[in-house]
């Protein structure tokens, strides 16, 4: 079981000074894409080159010495962070996409949404068995998309070292069960909490329940 990495200190832990600016640069848009959802919008952070650079560096600092040969990014906001991280690590970048976007031969993994299902695709041959891979997305909410991403990569024999997101819901702080499998913890994430905890209830949480 991998440790959950917390860069935001709690109870006197070490706080990465870059996190403050990153948190401040992310805006929360209420009731998007539907009522009750407080959407964490990273586009405002992308307008601040130094802050965006720091966000990328936080990931790169962590993975630099982990022999990562591939970075998989989840469409579409994972495409904003994944490639700069991959370039800095000298790793491949692998887009994980919604159905019918990737040309040529793909493998597909379904996952459950609040209402209905969706699926994620990856090119056959993008990753070789045994390759060490990290998965990047801007935010983890239910973990459904990341589970699908992990499954895609493991089905082709890759070694998913970690999933890393800039923003995560508090419930991921202590690790969490994925897909009800008790032996498969959340593989670890770097995250910051970018929303006001007073706004969170079971029904009304920060992040997105539907893929936008």
């Amino acid at each position, binding site marked *: 079981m991998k440790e959950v990495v917390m860069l935001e200190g709690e109870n006197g832990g070490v706080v990465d000074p870059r996190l403050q600016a990153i948190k401040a640069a992310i*805006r929360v*848009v209420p009731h*998007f*894409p539907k009522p009750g959802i407080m*959407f964490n*919008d990273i*586009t405002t952070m*992308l*307008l*601040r*080159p130094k802050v*965006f*650079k720091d966000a*990328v560096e936080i990931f790169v600092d962590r993975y630099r010495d982990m022999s990562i040969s591939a970075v998989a990014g989840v*469409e*579409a*906001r994972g*495409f*904003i*962070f994944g*490639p*700069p991280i991959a*370039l800095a690590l000298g790793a491949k*970048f692998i*887009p994980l*996409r*919604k159905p*019918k*976007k990737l*040309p*040529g031969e793909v493998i597909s993994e379904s996952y459950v949404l609040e209402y209905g299902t969706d699926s994620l695709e990856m090119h056959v041959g993008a990753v070789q068995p045994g390759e060490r891979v990290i998965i990047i997305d801007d935010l983890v909410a239910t973990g459904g998309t990341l589970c699908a991403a992990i499954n895609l990569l493991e089905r082709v024999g890759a070694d998913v070292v970690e999933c890393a997101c800039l923003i995560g819901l508090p419930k991921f702080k202590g690790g969490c069960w994925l897909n009800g499998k008790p032996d498969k913890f959340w593989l670890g994430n770097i995250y910051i909490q970018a929303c006001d905890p007073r706004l969170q209830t079971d029904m009304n949480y920060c992040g997105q329940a539907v893929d*936008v």
Partner: protein
Amino acid sequence: MACGEDKEQKQDPRIEGIAASIRVVPDFPKKGIEARGFIFGPPIALAIGAKFIPLRKPRKLPGEVISEKYVLEYGTDCLEMHVGAVQPGDHALVVDDLIATGGTLCAAMNLLERAGAEVVECACVIELPELKVHYIRYSS
């Protein structure tokens, strides 16, 4: 374009490796290209110390947006940008992986110019020379 149209220019030596690693997949639809610009745009922005602004299909960007329609082979589509992403007078570069008819890039330029930015150039990794005749407006 890095592949110089001026034949007297020496070709950038990196182009051969790039061209060799792009594969052509026959008979695949060209829909949904918003996301591939996200692959190239951010690294370029980071390297030159510029803002990165995602231009997206409708209803993907939260908050206030401006919207620009453009014509497809059948029907129309729409590109959106956040209000306030650019300031009047900003110098902007539009990046995409591929240019076909130029319709999307025109919409992108219009969005930026409506917000008062100056579009310095549109840059794409790949062009489709057979569609060049369809360029409505191509500024460089």
